[in-house]
């Protein structure tokens, strides 16, 4: 190995990489678009819906209920001049979400009646829960006695991890995987098919040096992805980046190396560029959805959780998430690092056995 020669070749590899706009798109721009889209779709807490209120009671209790509903997050209160019957029809047709009618009941009581449609069962369930909760609160307050049970919902994510915080490391892992697997497998197949490897065989430089320079350039790209995508999340979405984020670097490098060797394995088994594309898609697409990159694995069926645990992307996403947004240091993610390096080792043995230059 000749360090100076590898260095100069790595620089040339980086030039070839970055002068291809498609590389920059897939490695940097596409993840930003994906993060923005998913952030907009799922980023905010769930919107419970709009309740149209007809307050025909005008009692202190009815006023208190309307006020309490208005203060509930996710609920929009609408005061409309409308007939109950036409509002019911609108709910059936999906033009209105729910109608709350408050009437004076017998004695000093207030009768609250909620009209909803089971066509949107989840939303109806949420609205029923909210209205019944508000009604109980107001009733209890009217008695003047202290509540027998006090209730306070508390999130287990101490740092109040929002969806976009969860998403950033997942997308970073995903984009490093795609750049590495597709990047190395396609160039390898193209170099072989176009006779470039044959031409290089006529120079005194060992082809292994050429390969090492390509891997070095790809690792540099992975580092750039870490820096650029974290900065993007911080600036555009105001994501709180943990002080332990530096520990994401070894995870990102080990993950990139793992997926580079995976790309190398594909590139050594396949001879046509189209086949390489198909094979990498078959490998990366399921991994993308099963590894907890977009949504927590814990929210998925048990079987999926079991599958996730054998996928390297799961460990990379996990390691990146722990270090970048969960304030965990390197020691905490050593198991993830170990798994990634172990998979790298196994794949390296397999691919070196099957590899051919021509």
């Amino acid at each position, binding site marked *: 190995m000749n360090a100076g020669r590898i260095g100069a070749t790595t620089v040339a590899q980086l030039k*070839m990489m970055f002068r291809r706009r498609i590389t920059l798109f897939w490695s940097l721009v596409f993840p930003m678009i994906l993060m923005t889209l998913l952030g907009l779709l799922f980023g905010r807490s769930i919107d419970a819906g709009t309740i149209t209120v007809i307050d025909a009671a005008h009692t202190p209790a009815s006023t208190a209920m309307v006020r309490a509903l208005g203060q509930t997050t996710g609920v929009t209160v609408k005061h409309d001049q409308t007939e109950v019957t036409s509002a019911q029809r609108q709910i059936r047709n999906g033009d209105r979400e729910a109608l709350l009618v408050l009437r004076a009941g017998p004695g000093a009581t207030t009768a609250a009646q909620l009209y909803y449609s089971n066509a949107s069962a989840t939303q109806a369930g949420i609205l029923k829960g909210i209205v019944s909760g508000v009604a109980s609160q107001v009733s209890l307050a009217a008695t003047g006695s202290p509540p027998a049970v006090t209730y306070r919902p508390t999130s287990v994510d101490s740092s109040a991890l929002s969806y976009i915080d969860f998403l950033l490391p997942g997308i970073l892992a995903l984009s490093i995987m795609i750049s590495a697997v597709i990047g190395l497998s396609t160039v390898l197949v193209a170099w072989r098919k*176009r006779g470039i490897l044959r031409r*290089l065989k*006529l120079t005194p430089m060992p082809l292994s040096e050429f390969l090492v320079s390509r891997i070095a350039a790809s690792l540099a790209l992975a580092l750039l992805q870490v820096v650029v995508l974290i900065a993007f999340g911080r600036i555009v979405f105001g994501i709180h980046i943990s002080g332990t984020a530096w520990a994401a670097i070894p995870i990102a490098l080990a993950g990139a190396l793992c997926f580079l060797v995976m790309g190398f394995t594909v590139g050594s088994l396949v001879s046509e560029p189209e086949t390489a594309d198909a094979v990498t898609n078959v490998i990366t697409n399921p991994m993308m959805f099963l590894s907890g990159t977009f949504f927590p694995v814990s929210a998925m069926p048990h079987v999926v959780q079991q599958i996730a645990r054998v996928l390297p992307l799961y460990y990379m996403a996990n390691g990146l998430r722990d270090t970048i947004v969960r304030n965990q240091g390197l020691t905490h993610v050593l198991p993830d690092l170990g798994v990634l390096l172990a998979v790298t080792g196994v794949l390296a043995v397999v691919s070196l056995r099957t590899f051919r230059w021509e």
Partner: protein
Amino acid sequence: MIATGMNAITVDGLTKRYGEHVAVDGISFHVEQGEAFGILGPNGAGKTTTLEMIEGLRKPDAGEVSVLGKPVWPDPRSVQGRIGVQLQSTSLFDKLTARELLMLFARFYDRKDGAERAATALALVGLEAKADAYADSMSGGQQQRLAIALALVHDPDVVFLDEPTTGLDPQARHNLWDVIRAINVDAGKTVVLTTHYLEEAEQLCDRVAIMDEARIIALDTPAGLIASLGADVRIAYTEDGREQISYAHDAQAAVLEALEQAKVRGTRVEGLSVRGPSLEDVFLKLTGREFRG
């Protein structure tokens, strides 16, 4: 320095088989230093396989080959620093400029003077104006010249060119001939080229080996090969639709005689041409077939 009197290339009994098919069948020849040596033959004659065994890309099944006094096999790397190769179908890396490619290749040979070497090689192939252009933006002829520049960047003693002008238009072909002459005559390098263009071999080569069906069927200077026909002119015509080719010393006498005989037979002579013989005629005489590149 190379010891004087040593052959640039010595090939002895070189053989390559692919299963039942014999691609190169025990050929022997030598190339002298400073010579422009051509291997001429139709497609599939074994030219490229021969070249690739000398370059160290393909291992021969039998026979010996040495370059500048060193055996190529079993360790081709021992000679690869001294030879420069343009392969028949190398596409280059895209997204590197000609200059960057040349400097990268100079680095492969561990040369630190890449910038100067790149400039020299570009000048030699007349590609200075395209120094900062990407290979994929160049014409076919320019790409071929770049491939030749890459073969020259480490200042090799022997340069191999595998069908350098195939696929080029006549203008680009003639430009490339000037480049090849410059490499051979001005830069003093030994040049070995394969071609299926008779005219190219005649124009560029000091000596030509004619290959057909895995064997060398003739080897001499172009003039020597033509002289072996024992004729000064080639007379061709069609007589009642049948093509007639004959060779003679005295053009006037031969033409008159042909016309006379046709008159006697009462046949019609058309498309009469008289010219000096070429390598095409040598091939026809040796194989009984017309040369088809």
